[in-house]
């Protein structure tokens, strides 16, 4: 089964190289989607061994994931995993992400970061809980870590996703698609890597509000 890692990246020139190298031994192909980076993310990723697809203008996380999945499917991937470029994820978790898909138990797996107090900072836990609550209210599915960037799909599940959100609200949109397409979801515990850098990423409160607004709008439009 051909396995492909999709790594959406925007100005992650410092960390993408390490991420790509850690993934090279774990999956058959690494596709980095350079989302209009101003730095050398694209060339650095290519030098590290990834195939790079470039957005010539920045379109957002959702758009980058969509492009990565499209590229993976065109390359005949059977299993696809989305993986963050900022070093927050551990390549060693990928095999565990694929296992329920290989055994046929699930169509989609989401890596759930542990809610253990010791390992996850309080602000992160609250923000995650709010994201989960909003996802549940809007889409009817309670997912322990709805905002997790580590997700794996079978090629059929990935092909079935109809993603329209360009930016970070794509995380919740994926949950909605899972419910709409009646895909089987399994959450796999993973260990997040909280470096000072990866802590500075993620949704701030105002971004969270805008995300909520966009999601509500898309729900109305559908």
């Amino acid at each position: 089964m051909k396995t492909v890692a999709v790594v959406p990246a925007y100005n992650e020139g410092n960390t993408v190289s390490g991420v790509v190298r850690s993934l090279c031994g774990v999956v058959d192909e690494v596709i980095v989607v350079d989302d209009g980076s101003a730095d050398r993310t694209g060339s650095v990723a290519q030098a590290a061994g990834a195939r790079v697809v470039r957005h010539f203008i920045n379109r957002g996380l959702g758009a980058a994931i969509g492009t990565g999945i499209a590229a993976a499917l065109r390359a005949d991937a059977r299993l696809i995993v989305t993986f963050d470029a900022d070093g927050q994820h551990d390549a060693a978790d990928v095999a565990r992400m694929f296992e329920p898909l290989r055994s046929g138990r699930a169509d989609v797996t989401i890596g759930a970061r542990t809610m253990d107090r010791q390992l996850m900072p309080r602000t992160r836990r609250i923000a995650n809980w709010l994201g989960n609550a909003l996802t549940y209210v809007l889409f009817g599915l309670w997912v322990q870590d709805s905002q997790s960037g580590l997700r794996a799909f079978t090629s059929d599940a990935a092909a079935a996703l109809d993603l329209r959100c360009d930016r970070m609200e794509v995380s919740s949109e994926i949950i909605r698609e899972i419910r709409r397409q009646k895909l089987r979801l399994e959450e796999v515990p993973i260990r997040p890597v909280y470096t000072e850098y990866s802590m500075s990423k993620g949704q701030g409160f105002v971004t969270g509000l805008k995300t909520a607004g966009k999601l509500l709008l898309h729900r109305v439009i559908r």
Partner: protein
Amino acid sequence: MLLIQLIIIAFAAFAVWRTVSRFREGELSARALVLWLLFWIVVTVAVALPQSTSWFAAVVGVGRGVDAAIYVSIVVIFYLLFRVFIKLEKIQHDITLLVREVGLMKGEGDSEQDN
């Protein structure tokens, strides 16, 4: 007639002229032409014959004609804003589809060159 009425009616006439010109140039659809002409006719009537707004206000149960006109305008404006918002979202999505295709096509081009 009050000055404000003259000004608004003159502007409405100007707007109708511009609307018809754009339609002739092919920049406006027939549907849009009809809708906008209807809009400016309503504006002209409401302004030239203020009693008409009082009549409308009485029918819908609002105190003054002016108030009714403003309430209706606000609702219409919100609706138009909503339409614009949705259009923007669609355009954003279309742009993403374009950027994606360009990226994927270039990627395929490069790998062919490597071979």
